């Protein structure tokens, strides 16, 4: 957990990096210990991944914002890009990329803005409506987005920790209290 003098609540390191990049928080780094700064530096460099391969920068920001509303705290954009670039078929990828702008269309109709700049309440309303409409149609682009967000979070370090799967227990108890 990381704390800076500019933000009261503790953050995961990865979360801190995103916050630093997204805000003017860079000037708060003086409140970090030298060892922490070093570790942070390594992570920032690691975080500067090469550009997305399947997602345009607008699509990247859209996916990132949508993922945040589907599962708060989910950092899954790089995973989703990787899946689109290297895992899905061309047809699946095109279906996803062709469908994604519907988030902008719906937000504009609702609030006159693209999805990423929409108010959180409008984003939630758009996503909830899509979730209701799409239901179990797993081939739909929105089902792909939601599935990738959920799967990506569950298999991320933060997700595995939250789910109690990491670090491993190192023992077996077949009748432990919940």
């Amino acid at each position, binding site marked *: 957990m990381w704390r800076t003098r500019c933000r009261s609540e503790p953050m995961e390191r990865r979360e801190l990096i995103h916050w630093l990049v997204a805000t003017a928080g860079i000037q708060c780094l003086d409140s970090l210990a030298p060892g922490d700064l070093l570790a942070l530096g390594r992570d920032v460099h690691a975080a500067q991944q090469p550009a997305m391969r399947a997602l345009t920068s607008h699509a990247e920001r859209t996916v990132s914002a949508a993922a945040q*509303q*589907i*599962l*708060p705290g989910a950092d899954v954009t790089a*995973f989703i890009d*990787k*899946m689109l670039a*290297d*895992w899905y078929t061309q047809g699946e990828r095109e279906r996803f990329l062709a469908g994604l702008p519907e988030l902008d269309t719906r937000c504009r109709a609702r609030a006159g803005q693209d999805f990423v700049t929409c108010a959180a309440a409008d984003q*939630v309303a758009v*996503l*909830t409506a899509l*979730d*209701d409409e799409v*239901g*179990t149609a*797993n081939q739909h682009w929105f*089902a792909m987005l*939601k*599935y990738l967000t*959920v*799967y*990506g*979070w*569950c*298999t*991320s*370090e933060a997700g*595995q920790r*939250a*789910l*109690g799967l*990491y670090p*491993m*227990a*190192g*023992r*077996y*108890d*077949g*009748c*432990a*209290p*919940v």
Partner: protein
Amino acid sequence: MKDVTRFDAIVVGSGMTGGWAAKELTERGLRTLVLEAGRPITPERDFVEHKPPWEMPFRGLGDRRTVAQRQPMQRNSVSFDEWSHVFWTDDADNPYSTPSDRPFHWFRARQVGGKSTIWSRQVYRWSDLDFEANLRDAVAIDWPIRYADIAPWYDHVERFIGVSGQAEGLSHLPDGPFLPPMALNCVEQHVRERMQEKFGRERLLTIGRVANLTTPHLGRAPCHYCGPCHRGCITRSYFSSVNATLPAARATGRLTLRPFSIVRSLVYDARTGRVTGVRMIDAKTKTERAYTARVVFLCASALESARILLNSGLGNSSGQVGRNIMDHIKGGGGSGQIDGWTDRRTIGDRPNGIYVPRFRNVTARHPDFIRGYGFQGGAGRAGWSAALRAPGIGAALKERLMQLGPWSMSFWGFGEMLPREENRATLHPTLVDAWGIPTLHIECQWSENELAIHRDMNVTAAELLEAAGATNIQPSGGPSTPGGTNHEMGTARMGRDPKTSVLNGWNQLWDVPNVFVTDGAAMTSSGNQNPSLTYMALTARACHYAVGQMKRGEL
């Protein structure tokens, strides 16, 4: 470095049985060459069981495109995943064929340790219910051995590999020198008790007997319940060649292990009626070379050992090489929900489940089929992976992912397959592998007996679940594809008569006495138990015999 080409013994394959042959032969003084078709394995580099999903490029979903091109068959294995796929062969380099309407799954491993790195580690002894079965039912041919012949070798193997399990005193599933059993979870314990009330000792639920350590054992650490054993084991807590037998062989100073060495055929000397060694191809340089030895052990896996014999034109005066392919039929069983225990969960990933030993045709005779089946399975609560498509978004969805579902109990049957001559592998007339070696055409299908066993699995699993008070009982699916259990065996069977069998009662080729086949090829029937323990015991027994014969000058 001078390449020594003359040895006392050559072992083809370094897996489950090859590792045992290496250990037993070197410990009895033989300078032994082990030829392994695949790459070397360094546990610290190659075992990846602790690599978390976020360090995998596809988070465990696998490299779909590459797998579709290179491993379209191997990916069907239950142990195949993004971590373990490197422990399975490349299908494009290692082709085989089947009739288009009779698929056969041939799961293959080529690396030091073979399939012993990816096996499911369940180990069950056979009894005379199994060894006498063919004779009793007048099926195929009689085994040349009985339980008394192999029992000391089961002891020998189990003491070395380390088997955790619960002694139950069943005559048809003999106990061994077990390490402490792994625990049943609370629902499995409940099901055990309810089954006891309903069926007495006839249908018994016990913890799986598994080659995972529960105490320190011969320098290996006990299991720490990380779960995915098929990705390797850095703490050597389960038995594999890499973890146990090959280090023991190496410690003698008499082991030479040569990876990337694909044995093409045996070299036969018509003057002596014996083989002088093997001809192999270096997998990387594709150059051919020969090694000589006084005795050769084929431990290349059932179908590969048969392939080597067929490619050598040896050992087949009976016409039985490649025939009698057996696997275990699975796909039957069932699962149901067990209400209660909602305040209880499991901690840690136990690499083991429950076992229900065979109860059909043990005392009473079943009208529809001979032989029987056992159930594996277990109880658990569904976690996040069952909620990947859950409705909703936001904090409520996250909450849903963290909830555990109700307890469910599952039984998965593993049924005996009868030996039938028409289930056979032959050399393909034209198809060769990446090294130009003729490959196999495999024809294998279930008979009515196996299909009747499969149907009965669904019936009795439901009975067990009803006894346990389960609700929403669902039968399992249709029969598995032959080969799919990865228990293929029988392609160079043991017997009492050279006219109807390939090997004698010591796993020795009738036709060529200095060749032994000790992998699954040797099996005369299939039992319903997971077979690796029996392969290992047969191997150790055959090594003991071979060295005795060599010392007496008869080999």
